[in-house]
């Protein structure tokens, strides 16, 4: 695919719960190699947008194309790797090793009744290596720290060899030191593995520092463009209200 290939095209999408509008007339696209940050207040529609992209909810109006295909015709869901919210607090008692959890990321690629092959195991080992969790292979997933577990869940998404990685508030429950390493890891996936990443967060600083494109969402599209220059006070007020002031807080 050429570099400017559009992986996701959202065209005039709206979504409402009953009479309550959640998203109104969104249009944007995600290109191959993008590192897109989606930012906005809680309840602003970030997770709903992700759910629409993932096909978990259907838009009230508008259309979505994934890898050039209408969402109804798109069947290769394994091309989108997803790391859901709150995984750091996931069930600690579940009896599964890191390898078993990461390997489950291959399941959508395999289809029913097909068993894991050597190729699958190789992809799983590679995903664990990339995520720096190979040494925890046989440990129980519940015994990992929040940051390590987060990496394991990213390895699970990578095991399916996706073209896009979508992360929803991935650092909730992960301590600050581990968060910094985690952001470096994501940046390297985008830079070195050429993985397209969509990263949802409510943290303005993280999005402006880490991603190269930003999409500001508060029911409507407030801004969309290169991240560095975009998040000025005017935009933040439209996102978070009139009383918002920009304060610098450094993640170092």
């Amino acid at each position: 695919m050429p570099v400017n290939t559009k992986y996701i095209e959202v065209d005039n999408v709206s979504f409402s719960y009953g009479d309550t509008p959640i998203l109104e007339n969104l249009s944007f696209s995600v290109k191959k190699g993008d590192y897109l940050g989606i930012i906005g207040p809680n309840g602003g529609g970030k997770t709903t947008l992700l759910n629409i992209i993932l096909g978990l909810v259907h838009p009230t109006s508008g259309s979505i194309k994934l890898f050039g295909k209408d969402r109804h015709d798109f069947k290769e869901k394994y091309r989108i790797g997803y790391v859901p919210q709150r995984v750091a607090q996931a069930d600690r008692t579940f009896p599964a090793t890191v390898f078993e959890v990461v390997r489950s990321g291959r399941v959508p690629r395999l289809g029913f009744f097909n068993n894991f092959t050597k190729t699958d195991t190789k992809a799983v080992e590679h995903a664990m290596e990339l995520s720096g969790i190979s040494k925890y292979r046989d440990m129980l997933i519940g015994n990992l720290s929040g940051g390590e577990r987060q990496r394991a869940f990213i390895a699970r998404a990578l095991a399916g060899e996706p073209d896009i990685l979508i992360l929803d508030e991935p650092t909730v429950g992960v301590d600050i030191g581990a968060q910094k390493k985690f952001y470096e890891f994501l940046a390297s996936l985008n830079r070195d593995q050429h993985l397209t990443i969509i990263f949802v967060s409510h943290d303005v600083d993280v999005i402006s520092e880490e991603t190269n494109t930003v999409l500001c969402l508060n029911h409507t599209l407030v801004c969309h463009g290169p991240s560095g220059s975009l998040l000025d006070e005017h935009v933040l007020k439209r996102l978070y209200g009139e009383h918002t002031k920009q304060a610098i807080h450094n993640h170092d």
Partner: protein
Amino acid sequence: MIEILQYDFMVRAFEAGIAIGIVAPLIGMFLVVRRYSLLADTLAHVSFAGVALGLLLKINPILSAIVLSLIASVGIEHLRNSQRLFGESILALFLSGSLALAVIILSLAQGFNANLFSYLFGNISTVSPIDLKITIALAITVFFAVLFLYKELFFVSFDEELARASGLPVKYINLAIVMLAAIAIALSIRIVGVLLIGALMVIPVISAMQYRAGFRTTLLLSVLFSIFSVITGLFAAYYLNLASGGAIVIIALIIFLISVLFTRRP
């Protein structure tokens, strides 16, 4: 040959017992990790209503138990998907409803009340040759269904949201778990009894979980514990003249206690 195996009914009890001992924790594992253990008790009560119906209509009670619990399992999943009620409330509804149905059928036809005790707590002498054939055939079906769907069952049990987002037919996988549970439970009624089958599905699994191993190892351990409980329990039932279900579950409980003590962390 040891004395106990000279009796055909005991050989049948062992064969059916081992088949149940394998499939009960195989399904139980997926119920326990999903915090859905109560489903086993609910379906056991539905099976009991099925047994009562079978006795009333003079058809094989295991078959009527399987049919009724399969119907109930579809109903339970349908209600759960509709999200009109809490999952727990749905189970309570089916549990008490089917017990009420069983009691009404039993009081309508008082002739077979003598059998009641053996269906509630298990009885080693009640496995007929046809029961054995049904049990083995369906236990093999359940075993291979779990084997073929293993990776999907694991994925959905560990992370249902992600499985849905990845395009897996989560609704049908959940239905498969519940229907397989319905079959495994109905099969176990003869030997373990309505009131104790839930224990055979859950206790070997939670015993195995004490060893903090991976999913596959935990599953294998739970099957080993379950088979050991069934075989030892059947011996105890025969030599000490006990209800087989009670003996099996007490052995399973002893294994659980030993496992807890053995794996205790300082």
